[in-house]
């Protein structure tokens, strides 16, 4: 009796197994729920914490990077995998990077370059298809920016000119305002003097102020002379 029961239990277990596999079959065929990612056709979204080769950030305001070619990253890199060059561009205050290459084969992903960047224009990229087809393959970080560089320079020049014009205009305005204020003050003073009241400034006070100014100037001159004498006496400290 137990043997017969075992046979039926065994048969039932076979059917249960078949039911499980056909359930998964149905899920993939009918419900089209797939768990595999069709890699070359579907690209994965990398995690926020994913660190790959560094890249230059493209800022929205300028539509370009802000690398000034200061070589801070190149100097701090413990693996010597970054090489940067920068040059002055006519009409722009800051320098611009002319060459930015990194050898990802050497990079240890320490992130020091990102911390060192004075313009905060470096970050980790999310690249994951890091395949080189030659032995000396390097990332050209400026590759995506080169096409926009002329446009950026023109725009930046216009921006800076506008800025300068704005500054000049503001200075002019300030001057004008100051002049107007002086004029108004003078007018007020004249108005106040007219009824025969006491004069605002008295000659004694003016003389005292003049005396004080002269005194200060003399003291400063004396101090400068003392300093010069001291510098001449002691040997010049070594250039650090």
């Amino acid at each position: 009796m137990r043997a017969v029961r075992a046979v039926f239990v065994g048969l039932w277990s076979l059917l249960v197994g078949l039911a499980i596999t056909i359930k998964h079959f149905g899920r993939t065929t009918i419900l089209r729920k797939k768990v595999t990612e069709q890699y070359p056709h579907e690209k994965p979204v990398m995690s926020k914490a994913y660190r790959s080769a560094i890249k230059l950030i493209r800022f929205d305001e300028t539509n370009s990077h802000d690398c000034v070619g200061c070589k801070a990253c190149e100097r701090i890199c413990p693996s010597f995998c970054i090489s940067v060059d920068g040059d002055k561009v006519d009409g722009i205050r800051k320098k611009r990077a002319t060459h930015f290459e990194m050898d990802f084969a050497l990079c240890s992903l320490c992130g020091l370059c990102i911390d060192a960047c004075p313009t905060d224009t470096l970050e980790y990229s999310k690249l994951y298809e890091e395949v080189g087809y030659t032995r000396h393959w390097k990332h050209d970080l400026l590759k995506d920016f080169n096409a926009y560089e002329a446009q950026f320079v023109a725009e930046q020049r216009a921006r800076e000119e506008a800025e300068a014009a704005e500054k000049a205009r503001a200075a002019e305005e300030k001057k004008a305002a100051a002049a107007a204020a002086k004029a108004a003050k003078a007018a007020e003073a004249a108005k106040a003097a007219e009824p025969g009241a006491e004069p605002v400034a008295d000659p004694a006070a003016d003389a005292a102020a003049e005396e004080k100014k002269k005194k200060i100037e003399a003291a400063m001159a004396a101090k400068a002379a003392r300093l010069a004498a001291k510098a001449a006496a002691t040997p010049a400290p070594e250039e650090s």
Partner: protein
Amino acid sequence: MPDTVVNLVDSPALGVLIGIAGVMAALTVNVLFLVWLERKVSAWIQRRMGPTEVGPFGMLQTIADMLKLISKQLITPRHVDKPLYHIAPVFVFVPVVAAASLFPFDEHVSLQNLDIGLVLVFAFGGLGIVGIFMAGWGSNNKYALLGAMRAVAQNISYEIPLILSTLSVVLMVNAMGDANTNGMNLAQVASMQHDKGFWFVLVQPVAAVIYFIAALAETNRAPFDIPEAESELVAGFHTEYSGMRFALFFFAEYSNMFIVAMVATVLFFGGWSGPLLPGAMWFFLKTYAIVFVMIWIRWTFPRLRFDQLMSFCWLVLIPLSILNLLVTAFIARAV
């Protein structure tokens, strides 16, 4: 007597040639499809996609595979038994083609309609085992030899319940028909089910189950794929074969699967009989359904141990099929 291709042409030799060409072409297409189906079904069962790149749904993948196998260099390892090694793939391949030409695809469509059809199918099935052992022995490789020995032991054992279970159907057909009826004739078995209006799986369920289990073992498929158990024997008897010779073994394996499914269709599932659709369509629908179940089983169950396999055959299947045959014979005599 139903028309056959061999009878349609005047010259018997020409008819046989046309028939062989047709069967080989059909079997090749069929094998390509079955390999694709196996890969797709296994992928879907495992929540994967399977081949998707070559052609629609990856259907041309197997054609690419075939072209690769054809164009590969044929490597003959040193120290093999050259005659056996070279003949073995052909010896496995030829009986398959011969056996596949015996089936009634529709009411009057078959290449040859023989009164000993069923016997011939199993005889050709038995011939293939000789080829397998030649391959295993000739390869001069311990894995190949072990695989071949297992294959021979398994196939010889499982042939007994296989044939005994079909024999009960033959007995039944003979009992139900008149004096001219021959239960060994595949076309007559199919038309008998069509005339009576029911499938023999309903009156012979035990025989059908035994047949199906034994057929899985005969075709060396999981859970009875011990002759080529990958984890133990590399690839079993065809370990040393590559290129087109390997393809011939593969071809024979998948065609054998198709042949046992066709036998099951004819004996237990009414052959070409079915409503609305043309007969050949029903025939292939049923056959592919059975093949699908075989694939489904392969990707569900783990492999048996060899002693489990043999004791299951000798202690369960053979007594059960003999019992079934005796009961069938008794009822057939009584009715």
